[in-house]
């Protein structure tokens, strides 16, 4: 069985962690060929060739692939699809943009955010924001999947796959890239941060969130918020963690003044260590917290910043 893996390439460089974790999922399915599609992707292809377990690397170096536009990248993958039984990519925003398009062009269902490989046809994936895990068996002749990278260990280095340049396919010219705005903050991105500090309605005001930001900065973490805090206008929408916001799984998640509504828990309960600080000892957040502190957050958080 042959597997085609679309590497995550950003700015011409391989996102090693996301790609290496997807390689681990792909190795269970067959011989892995990595596709690097980017403008100036030679360096990314060389880096991909070093990943353990990779048999071949295809490098499609063309300006059309420089900004992950879905239409040209999907057409490229479809042009290669005949040789492969499985087509995989890490479940990043760029692959989630392109892989369902690939699947529809091949007239197969996509399986998104796969968290487990049972066999070549059967996969596990979270539904309802991780509140249930579904095992599905595909009857399609080709399987198109995105891989939830937090569920797999990264493949090691030490491979020496051959790199082959391939030609671009015709660009349908339906879209063009204008600009990227990388988040202005010095803080890490919410969905990939190792530490997330989130505030809830208990913070009480927009100014109160400065306390959350201070704690996050102390820990080198990202700032999150519950939907209640966002709806109350204390925090911007892009900080929202939960079923209707972002799903995070950091090593350390600190929930401050968050009661623990179901929709919030759905977005953070896969975190490795959860800390809850809340003055209401009955708050449901304590049921998922490894360490719970019943205290007034306006006393506890400054003390915590002090102690760390």
């Amino acid at each position, binding site marked *: 069985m042959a597997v085609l893996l679309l590497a995550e390439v950003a700015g011409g460089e391989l996102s090693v962690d996301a790609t290496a974790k997807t390689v681990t999922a792909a190795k269970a399915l067959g011989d892995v060929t990595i596709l690097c599609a980017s403008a100036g992707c030679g360096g990314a292809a060389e880096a991909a060739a070093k990943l353990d377990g990779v048999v071949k690397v295809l490098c499609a170096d063309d300006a059309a692939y420089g900004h992950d536009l879905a239409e040209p990248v999907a057409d490229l993958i479809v042009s290669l699809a005949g040789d492969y039984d499985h087509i995989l990519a890490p479940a990043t925003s760029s692959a989630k*943009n392109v892989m369902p398009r690939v699947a529809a062009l091949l007239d197969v269902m996509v399986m998104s955010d796969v968290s487990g490989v049972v066999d070549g046809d059967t996969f596990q994936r979270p539904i309802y*924001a991780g509140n249930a895990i579904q095992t599905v068996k595909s009857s399609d002749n080709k399987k198109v999947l995105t891989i939830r990278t937090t569920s797999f260990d990264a493949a090691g280095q030490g491979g020496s796959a051959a790199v082959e340049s391939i030609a671009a396919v015709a660009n349908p010219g339906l879209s063009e890239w204008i600009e990227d705005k990388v988040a202005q903050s010095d803080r890490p991105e919410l969905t990939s941060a190792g530490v997330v500090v989130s505030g809830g309605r208990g913070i009480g005001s927009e100014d109160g969130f400065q306390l959350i930001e201070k704690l996050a900065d102390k820990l080198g973490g990202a700032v999150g918020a519950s939907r209640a805090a966002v709806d109350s206008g204390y925090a911007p929408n892009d900080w929202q963690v939960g079923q209707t916001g972002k799903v995070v799984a950091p090593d350390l998640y600190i929930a401050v003044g968050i009661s623990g509504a179901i929709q919030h828990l759905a977005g953070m309960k896969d975190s490795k260590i959860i800390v809850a600080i809340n003055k209401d000892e009955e708050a449901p957040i304590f049921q998922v917290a490894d360490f719970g*502190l019943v205290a007034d957050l306006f006393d506890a958080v400054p003390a915590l910043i002090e102690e760390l």
Partner: protein
Amino acid sequence: MKVLVPVKRVIDYNVKVRVKADGTGVDLANVKMSMNPFDEIAVEEAIRLREAGKVAEVVVVSIGMKQSDQTLRTALAMGADRAILVVAADDVHQDIEPLAVAKILKAVVDEEKPDLVLAGKQAIDNDMNATGQMLSALLGWSQATFASDIDIDGDHATVTREVDGGLRTIKVKMPTIITVDLRLNEPRYASLPNIMKAKKKPLDQKTAADYGVDVSPRLEIISTGEPDERAAGIKVADVAELVAKLKEAGAV
């Protein structure tokens, strides 16, 4: 310009999801159902485009059970002009896969000829994040997913997309499919008079067979299980103990 907005009836985001004991799925019987939150944002955006004079008609479409007409009425009460219900399932536990939904939507697009399809980026039940991209592929249209800002100007749309680590702006040719993300807008609540008015707005009912689409699933659901439970934690007495525990666990 005409906008088509697909909406899905899903379990309300405030309801605790319960996995059925026999492992066949999630229990949806007698559970509060609502419009998928991302679809609400898409409906809101379409109505705002009409209010801004850029759009003449907002048509909403839902594919699923007969009861999805309630979700369509909600969209009509928000301000959509007209609704199409495509009955494709007779059991709430039968989720129509995004590929089949995209095929039905393609047939609706062929009939309605909208200039723009505005869809939620994903449904909060199956979390597949696929229907918009699949519809775009089937139509051969451009796509702009995870939109947080949309500017339509003649034969192009400029769309700012939420991507990992920031924002990316692209320009797409019309007609196009845009899937919307959380930051795009805050959906309005339907007022009581508008809820009453919505009852009189046109709602056409069709079936998947009317469009000649086979909705048989490609993915057989083998089992649905609970995620691993978290081990019960402990309460700490004070900040000092919390810091000690975090250090012990290697978390700080």
